[in-house]
Structures are given as C-alpha cells and as structure tokens.
C-alpha cells in the first residue's frame, strides 16, 4: 500500500452553481491519479468542519475551490498559500460568514503545519442552481489537464525531497 504524499481536497456546494466545480473536477480526474494522492471531497462542509479535516491531514494539501481572484470567469491559478492574502472574517464571526480563510487560520493556530497549495477557479455565477456555467464547462478539460500537470510536478518535488522514506517538506 502506497504512502500518501499529497491530500487533494475539493471544496464546494453543487447547489450553488459554479461553487460545485471543484467536486466535478476531482471526480473527473480521480481515476487518473496515483495512489499516493488521497482525494477528499469536502462537499457542503462548514468551515469548522474543514478546520477539523485539516487538523487530521499529515501531508501537503492541495485545495481545489472557487475563488474570487479578479480574473475572467473560467480562468484558474495554481499558487501556494504564502503567495496570497486570504481575507478572514474574524471580527464578524458567525457560521454564516466563516470561510476557508478562517478555517485555515484556525487550523494553523492549532498547529496545522502542512504546506497548502491552491488550484483556484474564478466562477461565473454562484446562484442557487445545480448547473456549472457554460464558461466553466467549456474550460473543464483544460482545467483537468492543468491540475494533473501541477499535481505531477508537486509529486516529483516531494519525492525528490524524500529522505529515508520520510517526506521532508
């Protein structure tokens, strides 16, 4: 049985339009991934539950999610957590306004030390419906390809850093 090198987590809600894209993406590429990548779908999870999930992860983690990055709809980016500012809602904290940034901050405050990478997609619409917008659907093949490439690169990077069977990240 292979040792898990990467946790790949998709966050989303299929009832909120493009917010479900991460779940569809991961379901599509899941069979093409090596055993060293543990795929988790964090569907409809509130942020505290995500913080709890993060606390159990012992590998670098790749988060696939929708994000407002000021890009055109359907554009996507791969980046590390250290490359961006994640806006928190700490002073108006309710479970309605508690997002991934707060979940990550909470987990890190509690000792979560793993590297975090993002594959983020700019949504077109986040309305209450069960459809991915045509713009994102048209780019899904390209997203799949890009995500697989980035994962492959990260795998190589991590394997090259493995010393004595342990990951040294």
């Amino acid at each position, binding site marked *: 049985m292979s040792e898990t090198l990467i946790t790949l987590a998709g966050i989303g809600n299929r009832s909120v339009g493009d917010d479900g894209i991460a779940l569809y993406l991961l379901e599509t590429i899941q069979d093409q991934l090596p055993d060293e990548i543990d795929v988790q779908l964090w*569907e*409809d*999870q*509130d942020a*505290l*539950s995500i*913080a*709890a*999930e993060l*606390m*159990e992860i012992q590998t670098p983690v790749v988060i696939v999610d929708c994000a407002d990055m000021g890009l055109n709809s359907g554009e996507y980016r791969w980046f590390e957590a250290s490359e961006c500012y994640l806006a*928190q809602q*700490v*002073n*108006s*904290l*309710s*479970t*309605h306004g508690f997002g991934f940034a*707060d979940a990550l*901050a*909470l987990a890190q*405050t*509690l*000792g979560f030390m793993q590297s975090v990478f993002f594959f983020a997609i700019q949504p077109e619409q986040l309305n209450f419906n069960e459809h991915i917008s045509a713009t994102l659907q048209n780019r899904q093949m390209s997203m799949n390809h890009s995500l697989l490439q980035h994962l492959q690169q990260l795998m190589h990077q991590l394997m090259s850093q493995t010393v004595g069977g342990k990951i040294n990240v």
Partner: protein
Amino acid sequence: MSTSKKNIRIKIDHVTRLEGHGSIRINVEQGKVEKLNLEIVEANRFFENLVKGVPPHDVPQTVSRICGICCVGHQLAAIKAVENALNLTISPQTRLLRVLLNESQFLQSHALHLYFLAIPDYVGVKSILPLASSQPELIKKALKLKKLANDFTAVLGGRTLHPMMPTLVGWRKLPDKNKLHELLERLQESVTDLEQMVDFVAQLKWPDYERQTEYVSLKHADEYALYEGEIYSSDTGKSVPESRYREVTNEFTVAHSTAKWSRWHRESYMVGALARVNNNYEQLYPQAKDVANALDLKVPCYNPYKNNLAQMVEIIHCTHHCIDAMQQLLEKDLQMEDIHYQSSKGIGSSAIEVPRGILFHEYGFDEQGLCNHADAVIPTSQNINNIEQDMKQFVPQMLPDMEKDELASHMEMLLRAYDPCISCSVHMLDVTFV
C-alpha cells in the same frame, strides 16, 4: 459621573457570532430605559409555501433546508408530522435510529455554539482565533467533538448536512455496522476529552442576573425528552399534547421583528437547553447530573446566561445516552424495513426538541395526497420575546455599574447565550393554498 444618570444610546448592527442577523437598540434617557428593541431583520423565507403540492415523502427533504445547523431537527419534525397526518407507525429500530440521529445534531450544535461562538465572550476575546491561541488543547478537543458529531450524523443519515437516509416509516439505506462500531469507540474515547472540556467551563465566570420566566420543553415519562413527549410548562406543571401546540405558541407580530413572537401563560417563555434541564433534570444521565453539580448549575436556574452551562450538561447527557443507545442498536442485526406507505387526506403535527428548543411542524394533505397546509414554529421565534424581556429587566440593573461598552457587550452575550438561529425564525406563518 454615574452611568445611571447618563444618556446612553446603543445600536448594534448586527450582533456577531450567532446564526443570522439581529440588531439591538437601547435608548436610555437620564438613567431610564426609554426604548429597548431586539430587532430581527432577516427577510422572510416562505418555506411553508415551498412544500405546496409536494408529495408526503418529499416534504421532510424540502424543509430540512430551512437550516444548515438544525437540518436533522427540521427533517425529523417533518417526518413525524407527516406520519401523524397519514397515520403511519414506525418500528423500535427506526425510533432508535432517529433518536441517535437527533442527538448527533445536539452534539455538533452544542459543541459549535458553546466553544466557538459563546465561550470567547467569557474569556474576553472577540472570536475563536485568540481563544485558540491561548487554549489550543481545549479548542482541538472541541473541534474533535464537532468532527465526531458530524461523522456521527453522516454514518446514520448518509451525509452531514440534509441527510438522505431517514424517510417516512424507516430508513432508505441502513448505516454500516462497522462504521457504527467505530463511532461507538470514538464516543467512548471522547469521554476523557469531555471531562477536560467541562473543567474549563467550570472555571468561567457567568454574569449574575436572574429573571424567572416560564420554561417550556417536551416531557416524557420514561426519558429525558428530546425525540418526543408532551409540551410541558413550568408555570402550570402540566403538559399538553403536541397537536395543541398553537395553544402554547400563540404567535403574534411586533413592528420591529420579521420573526413572529410567542407567549403562553405569561408575557414570554423560554425554550432550549436551560428550559429542558430545569424541567427534566431528574431524567438526565447521572454523569450529566454530576457535571451540573460541578458547574454549580442548580435547578430551577433563572439565569439565562447559564443556558450555556445547560448546553454543556446536555453534551454529557447525549454522549452517554448515545453510547448506551448505540450498544443497544448493535446488539441486534439491523433489518431493512419496507418504506412504502399509503398516502391519504389528513393533517398531523409534531414536536421535537432540537438544540435551541422545541420545534413544531404541521402538515396537511389533500385527497390526492399532496401537501396543502404547512406550519413550522421554530425555537428562536419562541425565545425572541423572552430575550427582549430579559434585556428590559437587566439593563436597569446593569446601568449603575456598567459603562456603555460593557452594557452593550452584556446584551450581545445575553442574545448569544440563547444560541439563536435567526435565519430559521423568519418565515410567514399564514399560508393560503389555492
């Protein structure tokens, strides 16, 4: 200058760390409270209209969406009400599964509210993050409990939010027995963590304000009533059947709230953890009674801030009860049951305790078996009147000793102590189906 002679205007838009949006307005002139309103400003949500024309088995799935925190409660209340409307009965196995599912939500909701939303108030910080910095081991335990409760709901109901497995007269797919065994082990292991979580709560200081009110909860002859029972009033010491819930709620409107208010035998009443502990203390598990003692929670307790202590007591009660119930469930092989049912014309209501108090649902069905009547009265809409009455009594008591900011903080804490779910409380009661 004495605060009691000052003019104070407090306007909090919106109170944080609760579900939904509510505002507090207080106007003190020359030490006298001229105006005090708890304003509920959420828009109406019209859920009772959404189920118009829906077949019986789809009603629970639809109304589950009223709330992302109490989805299990709304679902179970609807299932029970629909079954009552159609004269359907359930097996002991289904009842036990529902009891466990309901209590899984108590564990996750109480853990969320107590440790992540309420306790920051009592250690003087604005959010969970500074508390996590100063008390990492405590918050790790609270997070672990929340995850355990989430997984508990998912194993029984198929998923954490809006479970798909429970339905009319049974379960669409039974929980995996191995996963139930794992859950049982995790519940048993959580007891040690809970002891440490109780120790932390025990050393917190609680505002010392009391107002006796009417405490309303379910009451059951054989158990601490959460899944079913009659509606009990501490004022009369008597119960009425769930079908007469409108005699209890007596909903009415006020200009400053989009949520309806309730009253029964006096100007307001309280539902929720403190009401349940006050009314049903003797039926708590011994371990929960021990915790009530350790927390110095003596019944009847008239301090609404101590609703948070009652939540801690219920976490202990539900954990031990779930361990016993799970063992009982695992003693026998679960049997898949026939979930077909005969639809008919009828009307039925139900009452169930959810973390924030009693939840009432009622549904009617026409000759074609389609829903033609719906009503839901949620705990927060029953509590809002009582919260405002508390504020009206406490503000004059607090004025001599508190400056404006401290007073405002205590009002926010009071509102939070009730664990309000304001989004759920807003709905239109009067529904006319054409």
